[in-house]
């Protein structure tokens, strides 16, 4: 199984994602509230307008009914429908059949309602007690000047916009409030790591340089062996120190890229790890083509190679093998270790994505590899078989 294009996630990124999600959710809720509020306001404004118009329409309605009454009584002599230029009207019988109409929009009539707007007109329905000419319903209609409509919209836009600004302001404040404990914790941790790593440097370098000064040939074999063990321990600490420094400081600093002689770098790192590998009786075999260069930050490339080698040693079996191969556009580190099944590889990649849970050496190591790979567009492939070991390939455009 192989997986490629690993992405690393930094603390800033996860913070940003949290922020974006929060803002998204918050704005959505705020908008919903505003829309709901606007709808209610709109409805209220409309009702208010209708209430005002209703008085006027009731008057017209009464006038119409008086006219109908006269018409009913004198229908044998007089048949002119009562009209008024101020309004239009219609009459309907008990079975909702239109008897007569001067309406502009008779198709919009809703006899079961009292007052409503339809198609730019306001219609008012009155139910009669005495059915003059058989009229049970009178409909009185006037034009809707839509002034209230424009007014309502203007208010919604002005006050809605104002509220939106206030809500968003409150949202930003809330967010700061909620995020600040998290941020403080992260900064505290960051500071702690920076401080401790800095203070680790001096003693570790002191140990390493002093060990190098000891002439082991002159020592008793037993003592020489012990010194060697101390050196291995010190080197391990040194690698961990380098990783920590990288995580805590380096990856935020601008990279100092140059054409790095990869062949020399890989060889040097292999030599450095040999002593560690020997302690587990692991042999390192190399196939390094000379003269291969890559435009990269040398320090970062060293971290990447170190972590691959360190994992190959860590997860190897006693007396195993490591094979390092460098070709243009490709670096392969292969081990004869315990290997991983698909589930474990997936797990490894999950850990890449969650910086905070990668507490163990494995996680931090691969996390660094992933971060560097992402920065320089390197492709990483892990090919592993349970019990047979893993092969990690780093690829780039040569």
């Amino acid at each position, binding site marked *: 199984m192989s997986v490629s294009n690993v992405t690393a996630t930094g603390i800033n990124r996860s913070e940003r994602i949290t922020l974006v999600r929060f803002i998204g959710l918050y704005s959505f809720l705020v908008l919903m509230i505003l829309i709901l509020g606007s709808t209610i306001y709109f409805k209220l404004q409309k009702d208010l307008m209708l209430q005002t118009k209703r008085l006027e329409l009731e008057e017209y309605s009464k006038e119409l009914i008086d006219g109908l009454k006269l*018409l*009913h009584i004198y*229908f*044998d002599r007089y*048949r*002119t*429908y009562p009209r008024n230029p101020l309004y239009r009207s219609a009459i309907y*019988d*008990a*079975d909702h*059949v239109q*008897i*007569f109409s001067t309406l502009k929009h008779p198709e919009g009539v809703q006899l079961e309602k009292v007052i409503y707007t339809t198609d730019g007109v306001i219609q008012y329905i009155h139910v009669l007690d*005495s*059915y*003059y*000419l*058989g*009229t*049970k319903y009178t409909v009185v209609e006037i034009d809707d000047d839509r002034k209230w409509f424009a007014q309502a919209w203007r208010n919604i836009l002005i006050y809605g916009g104002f509220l939106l600004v206030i809500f968003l302001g409150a949202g930003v404040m809330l967010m700061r409030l909620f995020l600040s404990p998290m941020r403080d914790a992260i900064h505290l941790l960051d500071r702690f790591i920076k401080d401790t790593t800095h203070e680790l440097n001096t003693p570790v370098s002191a140990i390493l340089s002093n060990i190098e000064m000891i002439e082991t040939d002159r020592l008793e074999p037993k003592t020489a062996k012990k010194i060697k063990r101390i050196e291995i321990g010190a080197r391990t600490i040194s690698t961990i120190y380098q990783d920590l420094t990288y995580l805590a400081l380096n990856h935020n600093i601008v990279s100092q890229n140059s054409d790095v002689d990869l062949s020399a770098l890989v060889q040097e790192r292999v030599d450095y790890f040999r002593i560690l590998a020997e302690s587990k009786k692991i042999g390192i075999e190399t196939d390094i083509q000379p003269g291969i260069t890559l435009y990269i930050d040398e320090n970062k490339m060293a971290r990447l190679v170190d972590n691959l080698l360190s994992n190959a040693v860590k997860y190897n079996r006693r007396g195993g093998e490591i094979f390092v191969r460098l070709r243009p556009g490709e670096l392969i580190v292969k081990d004869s270790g315990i290997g991983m099944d698909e589930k474990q590889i997936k797990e490894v990649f999950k850990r890449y994505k969650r910086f905070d849970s990668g507490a163990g050496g494995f996680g931090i190591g691969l996390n660094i590899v992933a971060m560097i790979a992402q920065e320089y567009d390197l492709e990483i492939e892990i090919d592993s078989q349970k019990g047979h070991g893993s092969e990690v390939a780093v690829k780039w455009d040569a």
Partner: protein
Amino acid sequence: MGRIAVTILLILSPLLSTDINIYEQNCVKCHENMPVSLDKFFFNYLLKYSSERRVKQALRNYLKHPRRKASLATEELVSRYGLMPKTDLSDEDLRKAIDTYWDKYKVFGKIE
């Protein structure tokens, strides 16, 4: 539906003069010598029952079972002429008479 039937009836009225005859000969004949004309009764029914369907139904009910309680006529009229006698027309003829009555006095199409 009812109105379509009525329209057809109107168009064919010369052919169906027998229908009008039922009304003329039955209702009008008896009502002729009453001070309250049939059109006044009609508008009273319209005032109370509104639509064609309901007016016709009420008329049918009243003509078949005239009761003081259901009558819309004034006290004096009833005391002078007594209640209208229960109609002796068949259901079919009664329907035709009422249709003619409705068509004669209905307001539909007459308002200007």
